[in-house]
């Protein structure tokens, strides 16, 4: 079980400086319902955008808005807890200005 008590950083503040065109209509990543806890926790640790979260009650939570489209979850859990992984539609998603 993940212990988030010592994590001081708020990744949402980092994402706030990035430019996104979020496609509100289409989720390009979908997590299966009732995902394996161990698999989900891999993504809590490895997703650079911190999109895979544990609530204080320990519930799993995922939101594709803020996705950097890196593919970490596809490589780690594409076969286990993801129902869908694709790129956002053309022109949508993150848009790096520096890169």
């Amino acid at each position, binding site marked *: 079980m993940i212990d988030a008590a010592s994590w001081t950083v708020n990744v949402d503040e980092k994402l706030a400086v990035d430019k996104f065109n979020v496609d509100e209509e289409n989720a390009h990543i979908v997590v299966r319902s009732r995902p394996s806890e161990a698999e989900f926790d891999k993504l809590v*640790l490895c997703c*650079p955008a*911190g999109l895979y979260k544990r609530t204080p009650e320990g519930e799993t939570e995922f939101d594709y808005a803020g996705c950097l489209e890196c*593919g970490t979850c596809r490589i780690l859990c594409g076969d286990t807890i993801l129902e869908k992984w694709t790129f956002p539609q053309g022109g949508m998603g993150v*848009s790096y200005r*520096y*890169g």
Partner: protein
Amino acid sequence: MAADFDAIVVGAGCAGSVAAYVLAAKGKSVLLVERGEDAGSKNMTGGRLYAHALREVLPHFEDNAPLERKITTERISLITQDECTTVSFASPRLGEAACDSYAVLRGPFDRWLASQAEDAGAECVFGIAVEDVLWDEDRIAGIVAGGDALTAEVVIIADGVNSLLTEKAKLASRPRPHQIAVGVKETIALSERVISDRFCAADGEGSAWLFAGAATQGHVGGGFLYTNRDSISIGLVATLSDLCTSAVPIYQMMEDFKAHPSIAPLLRGGSLAEYSGHLIPEGGLAMVPELCRDGCLVAGDAAMLCINLGYQVRGMDYAIASGRIAAEVAAEALDAGDTSANRLSAYKLKLSESFVLKDMQAHRDFPAFMEGTPRIFKGYPEMAADIMRGMFAVDGSPVRPMKRIAMEPVKRMGVLTLLKDVRRGMRAL
């Protein structure tokens, strides 16, 4: 029926834009399709471009390419939680034309590279995601994008490390977590003057700096820092199969790395301009997919052409060279009116005769060495710091002989272990 284009190139990164440029310059009709709203908007590098491959394609790139700083200082550090042992090499010869390298940012750089293709006559469309390849029996005859089919005599897949198209084209299977690293980067804005002063750099010049050890909190991977003109690129790279056993998430590691006493003063007063993440194919030759089939070639990160040796991190020069070679082979095949796999397989041959696959072949055992030698990331950084502290810390107690200062930390690690690791490392390099 004639195809819509001689060639369709998927992805306007280093490989794709160069392939489109070379084909267009040879008079072929080319469509370059990019899913980002502009070239580079989905791309990220550490990063540094070794210029040799670009010079081969665009000899006068220095006149107008958006290069950040020429790298003339190289540093490698082993870091513990609060100590840092560094090898630093500064040389004007690193900046000479045969071996020059530049810090780059992929946003501006990729836009410039795609504009070279466009100026040469390639048709570029941005903001269009390619959903699938178009099959004509066993042959790839084009692409499907936005529900429409577009046909070409040859398709060059250069859609990057998360290549969904190489899977759809039945050329590759999904990489394994030990073959892939995730990179995170912060672009920290600082004035040009401050960066030059902090890194003792002449105008237009700068540093590349790689870190092993506490940067990834002992996990397989490392930290990086590159000086741009008026920003610093700082980040981490961590192999996924090991990162997923970490106690903290990668973005917390990143925060801790930036707070390291050897790093924090370099970033002081800077503001976060961008936070980015990207995958890196680090599995070496073993993960290179099939590179061609009827009507299709694969280049760049989609072909997993990348090497991380801890002191050299290369991918963009391989992407540029593979894009060029793919385009040259495609152009010859188009001239011969034969874009079958048999004809296009000249690409594999030419790549293996070039530095691209020669390097990948020479370093094929290195990924397994890194993965199988956890002491590089936890053990040796501490050993190095112990030796350095023994040499430099003076507290008035009687001096110890150098042999003991140096050998005690080595003995704690195990002399034989160290010798074996050095031997294995040298073999893999």
